[in-house]
């Protein structure tokens, strides 16, 4: 019996397309947490993120016969997830600021009194809290790069932004994160000590 990690995405897809639809569960297990993390940054709501992720997995399952195997499944899948999230925002008229939100607004915040940091947190929890203080676009692109493991050109393909834009957003996001962490005593303790 093969270990799950040794089976590639393409092998699983081939198997599903041959009629072994149960093998799709392996792709769900592989991508559910990463897809959820992306949608949770985009929608800022766990229930909505899970609902949209379910729809995205269903869409991907139905569209699997049309998947072109010359690209990575992960990039194709994250594009579906990302677009499902954007459609959800548009459909539900969610007030999630995107283009109008400036990272400069974050820079003038008083980092010493950041909300939600009254008790010590693990690095993971604290970092997600900090990420949620960034504008949606910045946190989404950081997740695509660091958690989902996409390259700059792949992120550009998923989001429809130019590669140059993606690089600028990544650079500015790292810069502001560094300032936030260095400017908050508790965060500095969590990350630097």
């Amino acid at each position: 019996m093969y270990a799950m990690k040794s089976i590639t995405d393409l092998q699983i897809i081939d198997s599903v397309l041959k009629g072994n639809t149960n093998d799709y569960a392996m792709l769900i297990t592989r991508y559910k947490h990463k897809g959820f993390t992306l949608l949770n940054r985009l929608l800022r709501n766990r229930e909505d993120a899970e609902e949209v992720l379910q729809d995205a997995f269903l869409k991907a399952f139905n569209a699997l016969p049309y998947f072109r195997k010359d690209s990575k499944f992960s990039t194709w899948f994250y594009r579906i997830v990302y677009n499902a999230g954007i459609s959800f925002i548009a459909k539900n008229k969610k007030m999630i600021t995107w283009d109008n939100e400036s990272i400069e607004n974050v820079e003038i915040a008083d980092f010493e009194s950041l909300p939600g940091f009254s008790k010590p947190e693990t690095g993971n929890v604290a970092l997600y809290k900090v990420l949620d203080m960034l504008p949606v676009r910045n946190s989404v692109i950081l997740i695509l790069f660091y958690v989902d493991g996409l390259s700059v050109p792949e992120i550009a393909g998923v989001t429809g932004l130019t590669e140059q834009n993606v690089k600028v957003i990544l650079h500015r996001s790292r810069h502001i994160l560094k300032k936030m962490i260095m400017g908050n005593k508790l965060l500095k303790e969590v990350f630097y000590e």
Partner: protein
Amino acid sequence: MNEKFEFLLNKLADEGLISAEKSELQTFLLDDSNRAARDAFLKVHESLRNLQPEETSFDFEKTLLSRIGIRKKPSASAGKIVMMIIALFLFGIFAVTFYFTENSGMSSPNFSIPFINNINFEELFAGISYPKFLFESSYSLLFGGGLTVILLIATVFIFQGHREFRSRIKS
């Protein structure tokens, strides 16, 4: 932090550093005055790289798989039911036509089907009145032919409807 130094560190993190920039970055890194800035940047970069994905709820996968299952099951069972109805309908028409043809005294082929012969049609259709003239002349052929055409058209519509239903679910 020196803007150029931060720009190069970012390019390093993006895996987009070209060879000329590598040597420039090397010079910055050898300068002790840049150490604090470098450490702060790398700490953020490493923290982000070690960030673990958030977890979905416990029953997420189960719910999703059942949604995929629910989507697939109705089409399969609906197909079976449609096939069973068609088969029963065909058999019923065949049995009725066979009975009336036998009773009308029409010539029948020289073979027998034991299963059909064993059915007591007299008993089965006892008490049912029907227009006998239909089966006493060439009307019986007309009746059978018309019925077959109606049946074939109905079958085409049933299959067409089933196919549309399936494609609607898929889309």
